């Protein structure tokens, strides 16, 4: 009994030593992360701008959006990634929308070697019924393929003038998403994030580069390629591949 009492006292003492107050403090700081949408290197202007397309056609964007999963900072030294967001939806669908959407997080100050995210809704979430989430949660933004099939990962919608008559009368609607399409996007950059010296990070997505790049241009004048939805994802595969490959990270 006496030994047990001593043991308990010792344990109590050790527990006191492990009090949070004695752990080295990890300073947290604000991190502002911008998501910028562009077309041909210029800030995306939904509806307001008529954009040239490599085929000689002209289009006006109505909607550009994409989900990101597991948005994470990668600490220097190989520590566990710092999760900024499990899921988020970046959407531009109004002429009033700024080309840059800003998100704010609290993160440990320190040195990082990169930023990464999954483009789309990660399989664990893509398998979940949205009714289990709050009605105003980002996974209840009515971006479903159907009543039992889940998320559309990214959308590009526009009206195109294919005849050069000034009428933007050909709808273009590209909806993409499936577990097979889910893609990790990673930027390897040394980042210093700390009080007073946080760099401004901007994730840039260029709609034109998603549609046309590396010598290939998606044929928007092909009627079979003007609406890509649901099961015909093979048609959109190259748009998706370009979309996933074109992201850049600006650090200022």
């Amino acid at each position, binding site marked *: 009994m006496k030994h047990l009492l001593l043991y308990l006292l010792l344990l109590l003492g050790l527990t006191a030593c492990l009090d949070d107050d004695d752990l080295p403090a990890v300073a947290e700081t604000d991190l502002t992360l911008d998501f910028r949408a562009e077309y041909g290197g210029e800030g995306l202007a*939904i*509806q*307001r701008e008529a954009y040239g397309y490599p085929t000689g056609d002209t289009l*006006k964007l*109505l*909607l550009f959006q994409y989900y990101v999963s597991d948005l994470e900072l990668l600490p220097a030294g190989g520590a566990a990634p710092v999760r900024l967001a499990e899921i988020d939806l970046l959407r531009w*669908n*109004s*002429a*009033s929308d700024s080309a840059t959407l800003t998100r704010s997080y609290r993160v440990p100050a320190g040195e990082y070697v990169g930023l990464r995210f999954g483009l789309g809704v990660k399989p664990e979430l893509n398998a979940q*019924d*949205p*009714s*289990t*989430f*709050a*009605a*105003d*949660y980002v996974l*209840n*933004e*009515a*971006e*479903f*393929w*159907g*009543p*039992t099939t889940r998320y559309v990962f990214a959308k590009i*919608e*526009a*009206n195109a003038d294919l005849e050069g008559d000034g*009428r*933007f*009368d050909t*709808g*273009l*609607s590209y*909806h993409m998403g499936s577990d097979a399409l889910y893609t990790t996007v990673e930027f390897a950059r040394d980042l210093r994030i700390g009080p007073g010296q946080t760099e401004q990070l901007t994730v840039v997505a260029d709609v034109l580069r998603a549609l046309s790049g590396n010598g290939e241009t998606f044929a928007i004048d092909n009627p079979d390629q*003007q*609406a890509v*939805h*649901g*099961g*015909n994802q093979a048609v959109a595969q190259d748009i998706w591949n370009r979309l996933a490959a074109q992201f850049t990270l600006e650090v200022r």
Partner: protein
Amino acid sequence: MRGGLSIVLALLLCYGCDRKEADTPPDFAAILYPDDNASTPEGVDLGERLFFDPLLSADGTVSCASCHQPALAFSDGKPLSVGIDGLVGFRNTPSLTNVGYLHQPLFWDGRATNLEAQALHPVGTAHEMAGSWPVVIDALRSRPTYVTAFREAFGDVPIDSTLVGRALAQYQRTLVSMNSTYDRVRQGEAQYTEQEALGHAIFFDLGDDPGGPFAGLVRGECAHCHTPPHFTNQRYANNGLDEAVDLDDFTDKGRGAINGQRYDNGRFRTPGLRNVALTAPYMHDGRFGSLQEVVAHYNSGGEYAENKSANVRPLGLSVPQQAALVAFLETLTDDSFVVGSLRGVGLNTDSTDYSTD
């Protein structure tokens, strides 16, 4: 009767618990109850009384239920709403089916940020109730049963328009429809007819699935905007009703009139389709008298405007396919919702009339 409504509310609040126990996801994401207006049985009862009470109008002839009639899934069967003295408004009365689940701004043009705010609009609108809030509040404060009902619902605070809006919102959050044929099919309790199944496949673009039973079937492109479970994405679209070579040509500018953004001219909030077969006529101006006309419109691809939805395009539906799509839309009717909601009718016309005590 009102006790029954309290039971409905209690069941609604517990619905998610029951389903959780059964390890089955709920049909819908839970209703969001505002922190400053949590629903209570007393608040819901009061809201129901107010909803059916013409006291809110200038001459005591028009209540919320005059336009939002339970038998018509809380719409009115008219192309445009008709208010006091027969004055005709300029928009079609929207259904209130499952309105409590919608968390984006309300009205065809999104001018009300939530149900509490929405409920305040019609009272002072000239072609609706044409009333005056000070007059309405005086009338409510002069009626002992209302004074009691407000005290039971909100405590010992003065009756004002905010409380009226909160009570009406609480009642409207009980207007839940989840027992249509569509729902029962999803739950394995019913089956579509062959025609309904075809319409379902067209609605949800199942023809896009190369390995599915409807591979190659023409697409309806409906669910891009009319997204389940409430068959609305709660956003704004120009669905091609009117040609507008210039975006300033729209006579009803819809969303653009609210936010001043000309690129949103002609855009209207996508309505939910639950009980849609009961809510004719259709569109923001009630121009289509039947679902057949609605489907024919979308099949045509609509009229030109540079902001027309890219998903509104000529569909190529045959006549039988159009009929199938209508048949599917009719499966969204929930008879139990309509019957269950009828209890409020006559609430203020019996001997315990709250508007005359």
